[in-house]
């Protein structure tokens, strides 16, 4: 499928330099930008709500496990790196290698989910809910919303892995891999902002 088919002509494409199109199907970028917008609004809302309750936010923030947050950051960054390698492999037509790299990324996604579940469990066991206070409302909303995106990203990766195992891609046709890769990088991109904002900055 040609990604240009759905391209909205936002910019004049007559530039003299040859620039590549956005990696993957253009449709996924509509989602990526929309998701970033939603998270952006929530990030800013968190910051301004915090400005009015600094002490409450600082005190509640201390109850979070910074270690699991940091490990999860490393996990996502590494899985993104694996995805980059997977895309590089498929550009050389290596379906099998691509599948290996993406499987690595998928497993790391699983590690992220596991750590996150432990974190959520600890909070629920302490009777903390979205109604406890504004900090926990944002913490649970933001991380849960992001969590759902990790799961979504893993489903997408799984579909690509299955196709790559069947050698469905080639050095000429790898839009599908790039589409999933772009989504996965977005999940990473958002966590990179979420982690310092919610866990560290005080």
């Amino acid at each position, binding site marked *: 499928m040609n990604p240009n088919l759905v391209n909205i002509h936002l910019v004049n494409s007559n530039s003299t330099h040859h620039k590549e199109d956005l990696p993957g199907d253009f449709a996924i970028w509509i989602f990526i930008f929309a998701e*970033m917008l939603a998270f*952006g609004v929530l990030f800013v809302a968190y910051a301004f709500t915090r*400005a009015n309750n600094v002490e409450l936010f600082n005190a509640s923030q201390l109850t979070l496990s*910074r270690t699991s947050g940091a490990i999860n950051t490393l996990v996502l*960054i*590494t899985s993104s790196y694996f995805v980059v390698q997977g895309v590089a492999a498929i550009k050389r037509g290596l379906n099998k290698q691509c599948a290996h790299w993406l499987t690595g990324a998928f497993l790391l996604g699983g590690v992220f989910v596991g750590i996150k579940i432990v974190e959520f469990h600890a909070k629920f066991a302490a009777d903390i809910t979205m109604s406890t206070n504004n900090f926990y409302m944002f913490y649970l909303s933001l991380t849960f919303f992001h969590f759902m995106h990790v799961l979504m990203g893993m489903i997408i990766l799984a579909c690509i892995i299955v196709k790559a195992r069947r050698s469905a891609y080639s050095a000429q046709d790898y839009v599908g891999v790039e589409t999933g890769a772009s989504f996965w*990088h977005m999940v990473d991109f958002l966590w*990179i*902002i979420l982690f310092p904002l919610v866990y560290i900055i005080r």
Partner: protein
Amino acid sequence: MSNDRAQSKLFPTTIWLVLVALTIATFSLGEAGLSGKGVMLTLLAITMIKSQLVANYFMALRKTKFLWRAIMFGYFIIVGGLIAMAYLMGLK
């Protein structure tokens, strides 16, 4: 083009290592329990570098039209800027 290919082997790995280092830096600042304007701006600067590294090199936007990189950068400037502003308001 051949130049690109030669660097593409090691280049993502370098980016990845930088991201790991910056994450550890963020974590250490948190563990040290530091707070205040300077620390906040440092953390935001680190986050900006990390997010743009992911956008430009992992998402491979560096090779695309300027507009797309501008969106990702502008996004961080707006979101990060508002976060900084809110933080400073909280200092009173």
